[in-house]
């Protein structure tokens, strides 16, 4: 009798691990759908019972409120107020991301410094800030720093007579003319400066002589801005205290300052850790090779380490940028008129809550998705092409 080969017993389908996995997934999905369906049904029923609007018609109603630092009239529709809130959110996001990146990078580098003082200060900053809740930091910045530590308007602080600093805002010298003129001037100057820098870099690559291409670029930019300003007779306007407010220049809202400062301080502590980790992740041989060809400390950092570190840091930085944008909604707690504050005000004044907040959610989602796209684009550009 030949030994019988034990053929694997056929597993019934209901005990097949593959079937079970699929079934579980489908069940979970169904449960989620069922929950949303139930919630939506409840919402429909409740809304129908008390005749609450469910569409976006409320956007055409008059807003009935005004926005500080903006000439939106109270009779303009809610739609316009939402647009202003959206722009204010973008303002905070752009300025916050730029400043947080610069500050975070500097502190990240400081944490790796050979100098004990610099290194310790960096560590203390990161550990102190990173472990605080952002809302608390923001409340402190608003109530303790801006309201209490900044002078009242009667004894405003006037550094160099250029700025007016008080707890009613910070007024800075500003360009006279339309934003479009300013934009075109700066853009064309930036473009020319970029071309000049590119030419210098190409020359440097050809001759092997370091000639501070970017410094030349920045100098060109400043020179061109001044030149355009002189040629077209634009002027600057200095702010001054006028009664219980300021006139002239550009006034930064006190809550704008508190919000941007808190977001920058908070996010930079996270960015510093990302930068530090990314620098450490750059292969040791790269730094040693830079030393071997006698690059200076700053050249080594600028030309060898940081470009490679940012390639590693990019995805994590993108997350921090998204966090900063979403965290800007905390501005509503300190009366900064960004998107969330606008939504809250308009809901309190008769706009239906569910459509208004759904719209707000979608706008935030849109901003975040666009940011992700941009970050991913740069990430792909920076990433090593592997073959």
């Amino acid at each position: 009798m030949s030994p019988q080969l034990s053929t694997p017993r056929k597993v019934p389908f209901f005990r097949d691990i593959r079937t079970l996995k699929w079934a579980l997934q489908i069940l979970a999905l169904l449960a989620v759908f069922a929950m949303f369906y139930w919630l939506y049904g409840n919402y429909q029923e409740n809304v129908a019972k008390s005749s609450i609007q469910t569409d976006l018609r409320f956007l055409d109603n008059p807003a009935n409120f005004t926005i500080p630092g903006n000439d939106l009239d109270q009779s303009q529709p809610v739609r316009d107020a939402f647009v202003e809130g959206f722009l204010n959110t973008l303002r905070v996001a752009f300025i916050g991301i730029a400043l947080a990146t610069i500050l975070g990078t500097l502190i990240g580098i400081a944490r790796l410094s050979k100098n004990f003082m610099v290194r310790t200060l960096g560590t203390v900053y990161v550990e102190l800030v990173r472990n605080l809740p952002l809302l608390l930091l923001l409340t402190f910045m608003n109530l303790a720093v801006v309201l209490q530590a900044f002078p009242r308007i009667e004894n405003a602080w006037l550094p160099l007579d250029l700025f007016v600093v008080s707890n009613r805002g910070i007024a800075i010298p500003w360009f006279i003319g339309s934003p479009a003129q300013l934009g075109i001037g700066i853009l064309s100057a930036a473009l020319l400066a970029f071309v000049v820098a590119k030419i210098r870099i190409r020359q440097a690559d050809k001759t092997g002589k370091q000639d501070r291409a970017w410094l030349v670029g920045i100098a060109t930019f400043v020179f061109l801005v001044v030149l355009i300003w002189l040629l077209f007779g634009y002027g600057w306007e200095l702010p001054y205290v006028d009664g219980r407010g300021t006139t002239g220049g550009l006034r930064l809202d006190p809550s704008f300052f508190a919000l941007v400062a808190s977001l920058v301080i908070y996010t930079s502590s996270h960015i510093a850790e990302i930068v530090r980790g990314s620098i450490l992740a750059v292969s040791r041989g790269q730094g040693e090779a830079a030393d071997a060809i006698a690059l200076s400390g700053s050249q080594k950092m600028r030309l060898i380490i940081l470009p490679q570190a940012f390639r590693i840091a990019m995805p994590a930085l993108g997350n921090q940028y998204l966090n900063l944008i979403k965290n800007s909604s905390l501005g509503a707690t300190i009366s900064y008129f960004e998107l969330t504050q606008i939504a809250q005000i308009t809901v309190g004044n008769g706009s239906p809550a569910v459509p208004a907040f759904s719209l707000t959610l979608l706008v935030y989602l849109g901003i975040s998705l666009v940011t992700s796209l941009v970050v991913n684009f740069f990430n792909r550009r920076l990433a090593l092409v592997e073959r």
Partner: protein
Amino acid sequence: MLDSVIAAGSVRCGTRDALPGFAVLNDSGEHVGFDSDFCRVIAAAVLGDANAVEMIDLETADRFTALQSGAIDVLVRNTTWTATRDGSEGANFLQPTFYDGQGMMVASDSGYSKISAMDGAIICVAKGTTTEGNAALESSRLGLNWEIRSFDETDLILEAFLAGQCDGWSSDVSQLTGLRSAYPNGSDALTILPEVFSKEPLAPAVLDGDTAWAQAVNWAILATIQAEEFGITSANVDSIRDTTTDVGILRFLGAEVPGSDGAAVLDPNLSLPTDFAYQVVKQVGNYGEIFARHLTPLGLDRGLNSLWNDGGILYAPPYR
């Protein structure tokens, strides 16, 4: 709603915790004030027990969402009755408890003596209120270019005001009076300007579409007004019920009214206990008592909030 309130054994009343005179927390953590007492009036009428109230503190901007979602049974929180709120927020406003108007409070040393002098001023208001709209309208009507800042809660406005970030604090005059009385630098440091620039009937609200519950709450409020008109107070309600021969008062208090075919108690089918008015007056008091308890000490006059036969506009429909 009425059935669920009776089943739950308590009224969930949407209120607040930091408005002197209207609703503040006392040392033992209880809500005290004009609005808080009207929450108790409703509980006394519906459940026969003025303390069967669950006070739920709400932020101004959240109050209608709380009402719409059923998190509260009734909103008694300095809320102005407006057409938009009646129509779009799903709120059903009832008998106003306080007829108010919006005014402006400034620091006494600011030199402002009238609203029209406040050109370019920074005005601080509460977020999500009719105050924002009224101030914006007044500013454009008088061409004053106000910068209007809205804050979540009165505590935050107070901080901003103390630090000199605001020139004016605009709200309903009753609120301003309450806030002024509790100002850290003393009430003399603040002045309420004489102009009043809006109509603000503050009324309790229930969710649209529940007539029985709305009627119950409405008649609970009206009972305090009617009681004052009859001269019935929490102190004399028992003796009046036992001694009076006035048919109107006997009906009102749910006492037996002698008739041709024996004594009968009037039950107007409001889904309320027949003695609800007695319970309201006995346990909380009439309108005048509630006003005197909480608002007179702040320095508020009865003014519009007097009875109709005393120069005011408080007028309860007859109870028969």
